[in-house]
């Protein structure tokens, strides 16, 4: 899959992989303070009687990368799926509290989850392109949302923004399933951003990928934050440190134990539990 590495705008080298915490965190000062786009107020989530999230309150900034980290079962993915109400698909799930997208509580009775998900795109843990051509995968969101425009151009634009165009421009009408895992995941990102959502949710998008593909996805995420708000769940501490502006640390029991600028969370964590977790003493 890497025959085109030399064509890509950012060739992979050690410096990218080792981007340090300070670099990532300076973006806030460089780009000025950000408005809040998603605000959670006392969010509890239950699966039947089991509490998955316990009183989560946090403000997620616009056009930044916010990372959710924590051990398995800490509720970070559950929180991510609250934002676009994907938890609605699980009968047993129950959400309490308020989750505001630009002041509108997405759990209000009058909110249409279909309309919500058109503003909040999602990329999943395992690459899941449709068994359709690359072109049709990217055009899918445009079609179902009835977006007008030059689809050829919109598809190309999305594939370029997902750093995949150069690798697939001559095989747009071949199946998306013929791509490598890393390419499939970038195709899924292209598909998610094609209808131009405000927020892109990513649920461990690189966990099924090898280090080179992971590094490409990480570069891409950093670029995406120029235009979109990216909220990413990861179990990889280094990844969170490399790519995010803000980091939220969840610990077992569905508690949010720390939320702040990534630099601060990693260099000067507020509690021993968080420090133990991020330095790898457990989890």
């Amino acid at each position, binding site marked *: 899959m890497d025959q085109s590495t030399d064509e890509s705008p950012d060739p992979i080298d050690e410096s990218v992989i080792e981007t340090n915490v300070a670099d990532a965190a300076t973006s806030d000062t460089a780009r000025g303070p950000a408005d809040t786009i998603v605000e959670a107020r006392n969010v509890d989530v239950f699966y039947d009687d089991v509490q998955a999230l316990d009183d989560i309150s946090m403000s997620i900034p616009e056009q930044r990368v916010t990372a959710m980290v924590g051990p398995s079962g800490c509720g970070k993915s559950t929180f991510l799926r609250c934002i676009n109400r994907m938890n609605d698909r699980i009968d047993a799930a129950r959400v309490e509290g308020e989750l505001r997208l630009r002041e509108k509580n997405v759990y209000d009775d009058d909110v249409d989850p279909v309309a919500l998900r*058109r503003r909040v795109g999602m990329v999943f843990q395992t690459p899941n392109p*449709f068994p359709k051509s690359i072109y049709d995968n990217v055009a899918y969101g445009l079609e*179902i949302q009835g977006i007008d425009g030059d689809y050829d151009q919109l598809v190309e634009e999305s594939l370029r923004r997902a750093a995949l165009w150069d690798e697939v421009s001559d095989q747009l009408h071949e199946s998306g399933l013929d791509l490598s895992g890393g390419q499939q995941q970038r195709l899924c990102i292209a*598909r998610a951003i094609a209808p131009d959502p405000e927020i892109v949710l990513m649920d461990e998008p690189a966990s099924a990928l090898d280090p080179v593909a992971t590094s490409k996805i990480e570069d891409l995420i950093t670029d995406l934050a120029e235009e979109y708000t990216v909220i990413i769940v990861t179990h990889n501490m280094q990844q969170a440190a490399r790519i995010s502006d803000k980091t939220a640390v969840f610990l077992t029991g569905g508690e949010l134990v720390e939320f702040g600028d990534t630099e601060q969370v990693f260099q000067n964590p507020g509690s021993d539990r968080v420090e133990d977790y991020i330095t790898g003493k457990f989890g």
Partner: protein
Amino acid sequence: MSTDDIEADLTRNTENAPSELLARLFFFVCAVLSVVTTASIIVLLVSEAAKFFSVTAPLVGFAGETVSVVEFLTGTTWQVNSGEFGVLALVSATLLITVGAAIVSVPLGVATAIYLSEYASRRARRILKPALEILAGIPTVVYGFFALLYITPVIQLVFPDTGTFNLASASIVVGIMIIPMVASISEDAMSAVPEELRQAGYGMGATKFDVSTGVVVPAALSGIFSSFILALSRAIGETMAVTVAAGSQAAFLQPWNPASYLEGALPMTAAMIQLLLSDITGGGLGYRSLFAVGLTLFALTLSMNIVSDLIAQRYREEY
């Protein structure tokens, strides 16, 4: 453990112990039995049919009355008593019923499958799936009565000229009969579509309809096609319902003319029943035509099954 013990322990040869060999033999015999049964039926069908055609009769050492293959395959009059064996009269009726049954069962079966797989709550599915299976368990002769006593009068309300025995009624009832087959095989195919694909669709802001028709159905296409072919093979071979509902007068009906559906005709299976029940003399031409029609029917369903496999392979999605 001493060296001798290990030697004895490791060389027990359990794989070829008498009980293992006996079990292997038993399973082998069962497998062979079913293959042999099927094969001998085909052999019987072919060898008896061979006595019917003038080309092949000498090959099997048969000297009686025969019919030319061309006459059999292209003739449009089926009159056993006057020695006219044009199988197209029977094939046309069978094809009309099959097409009619497809028109009824394909949309309804697929829609049912979509409902069961994508829309139904767990509770609705628990009630509906067994109900469908009951539909599949109704004796086919009952379907025949149902066509004759309930469907035909309704058709006659709309088209007063329709005869008591007509292909429309037979088509509808065969269509209803195979809905459960289309629905259940299609539903299996749709349920096998990975949840990740649905999530991808919903995550894009797709509605349930978008996901069902734009993601799940295309991904399950090979299974859905297989369900069509299998169900239609069943429709072609269906006997009791069409014998009761379609009539007993062989007639060549133009398959491309919708008005044909309002007339009665004799499908292949019903013609075979008629031959068996009539006073055809054993060994006579009429008797031997039974095998020729049977072989034609077998060729038709076999080729549909082959087509089904090819289609399933062509559209198989690897997800």
